[in-house]
């Protein structure tokens, strides 16, 4: 029984060392890359929807296809257990993702449905694109509401 506190201490020391070195697991880097590509595609679509840049059907379609492609990546591979804010530095992924995995998958599915709608709307003119971008933003927010740490 004496080993237990020792083991606990070792784990604490071990994780402190890991944190001090700022090791960011590859899965965390990978999913952050995914988010960045999504954000880049949305910046083009959202820029058009907001009227900050001229609507271009071809460019909108390209951006929507990129968004579609990168949003299909495996959730299991990018969100392994042990990569929440409580276990690693450099992530804003809350432990709630893993304690409410079903809820997280529901939100991810809703986001993908919104991406489908954006992809369908993208070539069909600004008036089709705008509401689809609104729904997309809400689906981003719905997941970030419960599962991403505030800044």
């Amino acid at each position, binding site marked *: 029984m004496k080993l237990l506190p020792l083991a606990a201490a070792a784990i604490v020391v071990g994780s402190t060392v890991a944190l001090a070195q700022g090791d960011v697991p590859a899965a965390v880097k990978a999913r952050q890359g995914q988010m960045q590509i999504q954000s880049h595609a949305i910046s083009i679509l959202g820029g058009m929807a907001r009227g900050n840049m001229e609507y271009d059907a071809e460019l909108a379609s390209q951006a929507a296809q990129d968004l579609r492609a990168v949003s299909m990546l495996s959730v299991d591979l990018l969100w392994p257990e042990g990569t929440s804010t409580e276990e690693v530095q450099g992530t804003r992924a809350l432990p709630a993702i893993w304690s409410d995995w079903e809820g997280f998958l529901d939100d991810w599915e809703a986001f993908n449905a919104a991406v489908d709608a954006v992809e369908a709307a993208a070539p069909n003119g600004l008036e089709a694109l705008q509401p689809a971008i609104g729904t997309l*933003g809400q689906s*981003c*927010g719905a997941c970030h509401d419960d599962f991403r740490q*505030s800044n």
Partner: protein
Amino acid sequence: MRAVPLIGAVLVIGAAAGFWLTGARGLGAEAQAAIAAAPGDAEAGRLVFHAAGCASCHTAEGAEWSETPVLSGGQTFATEFGTFRAPNVSMHPEAGIGGWTLAQFADAVQAGVSPEGTHYYPAFPYGAYRLATPQDVADLWAFWQGLPASEAESLPHDLRFPFSIRRGVGVWKLAALPESWFSETPGGDPAAARGQYLAEALAHCGECHSPRDALGGIDRGAWLEGAPNPSGSGNIPGITRDQLGWSADEIANYLNDGFTPEFDSAGGHMARVVLNLSRLPAEDREAIAAYLMQVE
């Protein structure tokens, strides 16, 4: 030896005065009369409801956004004072507030006082709502009449001593309840003035975006300069003009579609705020932006 009864008397009077000062008193007769005289308009109240973000806290955990939400309560808010639980404020006559009068509703929303004459904890942002106009309070209550009823039982808060003593809220109210705007009123620009009303009285931005003093009151000297997250980890960002560094257009767009200028998305509780504010007319989001551009 005569001094002792005198000191005793002073203490008794002092205690009585303190007891009186910290008592739960509703709005003054004048404020209530103005609210009673305002003709309540449910459609106008719908916008007040969304701007004030009532549903963000009073719906059940994980409930979908709705134009007419079920305000069953149940969400928990873990804070340094303990855990607050949002009560049922649906139109159910017993489990909710369906049996209340407009005056009782106004006392709750603007003075933090229940129909039973006890204090509400300021997790309920009546400190902001007390700045709302009598017309908006009457409109809000008119809108409330059309909301569904829920039988869900309100659960008690679970607070640490001494915060578990409700009377203590009276002390907080003496120190922290605002009698005027939290920041200087923007001069010359009616849009910014409207924005101040929306941001300070209804949307209660300062509740999370401003730090608090030792007594838990909002630190007006650091208005909207950011603060630790009251519920959970991380920080709520500062949103003064210089801290945010966004244009008025970028702010108004963010409040509508939830995307930052870099096309990151709103997160945390702010995602719900965006969902609510996206239901307001575009001019109202532009007004909030105009106001924030003047907050230094």
